[in-house]
């Protein structure tokens, strides 16, 4: 009941936008290479569905691989350095600086290092992109702990490990989920865009550039839509996981009205 009410405006807005887009293209007779009509993109999507799914999956695997490597490393480094506050404090400015480097600019070079056809070259780019936001947020979550809570753990005279386990890690969970919400869309952008600089023929980024180069713009748009669907799906997975794993946090608490 309440779900329909929550999502209804968004659905209406989405449908309205599609209708306006369609009318806009039809009425003003917009050229295909500028903007194809949704109906045309829809047809291209249906015609190439099998192919789109397989190349979409290929690129999704690159994004997921990069996420796995980058997030594991980011959380791991944060856990190791948070143990020594001084280490993480010296590292943070560098991490924040590194985070503002446009890592995608290195894509052609990384393609060279690992071989342009090797999915690993894309995973490495994605991993580096997601590493810094994940690490920075996790360090924050592990260190921005209520001083009273630390004092209480101290009164229990317990080990550093137990303080990390009972206090710092739970405290960091909401920060980690916020990082995931940022890096999951980034991972898909990273994978597709680094494919623009060359890669396996069965990859989404290559498909989009080649179709566009051959003036099959509706196909290129269909590829973009696949990328959007994957991005949104991964984001939804993060939201569901957040609800399941940290139901106690204020951002996901069930309202008892």
């Amino acid at each position, binding site marked *: 009941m309440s779900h329909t009410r929550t999502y209804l405006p968004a659905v209406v807005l989405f449908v309205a936008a599609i209708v306006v887009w369609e009318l806009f293209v039809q009425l003003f007779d917009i050229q295909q290479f500028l903007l194809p009509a949704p109906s045309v993109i829809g047809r291209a999507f249906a015609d190439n569905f099998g192919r789109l799914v397989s190349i979409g999956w290929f690129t999704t695997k690159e994004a997921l691989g990069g996420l796995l490597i980058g997030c594991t490393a980011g959380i791991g480094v944060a856990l190791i350095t948070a143990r020594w506050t001084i280490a993480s404090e010296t590292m943070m400015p560098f991490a924040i600086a590194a985070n503002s480097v446009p890592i995608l600019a290195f894509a052609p070079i990384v393609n060279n290092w690992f071989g342009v056809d090797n999915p690993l070259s894309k995973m490495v780019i994605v991993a580096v992109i997601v590493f810094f936001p994940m690490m920075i947020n996790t360090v924050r979550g592990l260190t921005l702990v209520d001083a009273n809570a630390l*004092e209480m753990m*101290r*009164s*229990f005279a317990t080990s550093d490990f137990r303080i990390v386990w*009972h*206090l710092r890690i739970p405290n960091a969970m909401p920060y980690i989920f916020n990082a995931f919400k940022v890096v999951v869309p980034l991972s898909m952008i990273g994978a597709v865009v680094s494919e623009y600089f060359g890669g396996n023929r069965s990859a989404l980024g290559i498909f989009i550039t080649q179709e566009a180069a051959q003036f099959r713009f509706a196909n290129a748009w269909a590829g973009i839509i696949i990328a959007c669907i994957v991005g949104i799906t991964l984001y939804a997975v993060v939201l569901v996981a957040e609800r399941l794993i940290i139901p106690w946090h*204020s951002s996901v*608490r069930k309202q008892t009205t």
Partner: protein
Amino acid sequence: MEAVPVVSFDNVDKIFNRGGADETVALKSINLDIRPSEFISIIGPSGCGKSTLLRLVGDLIAPSAGTVTVNGKEAHQARLDHDYGMVFQQPVLFDWRTIQRNVELPLEVYGFDKAERQQRARELLQMVELGGFENHRPWQLSGGMQQRVSIARALATAPKLLLMDEPFGALDEMTRERMNMELHAIWRQTDTTVIFVTHSISEAVFLSNRVIVMSARPGRIMQIVDIDLPIPRGEHTRQDPALFEAERAVREWLRKAEAFSA
């Protein structure tokens, strides 16, 4: 021969941010012996160093001068030996744990087995009148209820020394009186030593063997008032003229302390 004091302050000073522009002399020349099984209250104006005094006993901060001894050892060693339980001025509950599991936390840390700690936590929650709230989360409870959870948590390990920082400050008068009776019963049944910080004169007098009146800036012990009311205390105590006499004495010293601080 005098018994070994449970807590002993020997010429203790506590200065925060020494040498800085915001240097604060929180405590000055504190000398105090607390006897075994004593119930001692600390009362004084806000900022006079009551919490600081408790935190020194708990080795949560170190003295700037002098020594704090707990059970005949350094406060540091006593903390490592789990010699005390503490109720903090804020409830400090973990949102990621249910009420029951918040109470179990110290038992879990100390390595008690699961069945035992669940049993113990349930009993204590009953005692602080929170039976039925085991599976609630901290944010679903009122401030006074949260503070009672933190009392249950401090009692979980059955400490021989209980440090309580304004534990009943957030309670209504009736609940507070019931909690006072509970605490009094626990104190009599177990031979626990209690150091109890409060702003309430009547609560301090009702519960204590001695009431320490402190003055502020710098925090000093102004006077120690002996409360010679018969134990156990109960409804009859509230009618006892000696109670009013003791309250009057504490109030007078508190007034002097305020004047001294101003």
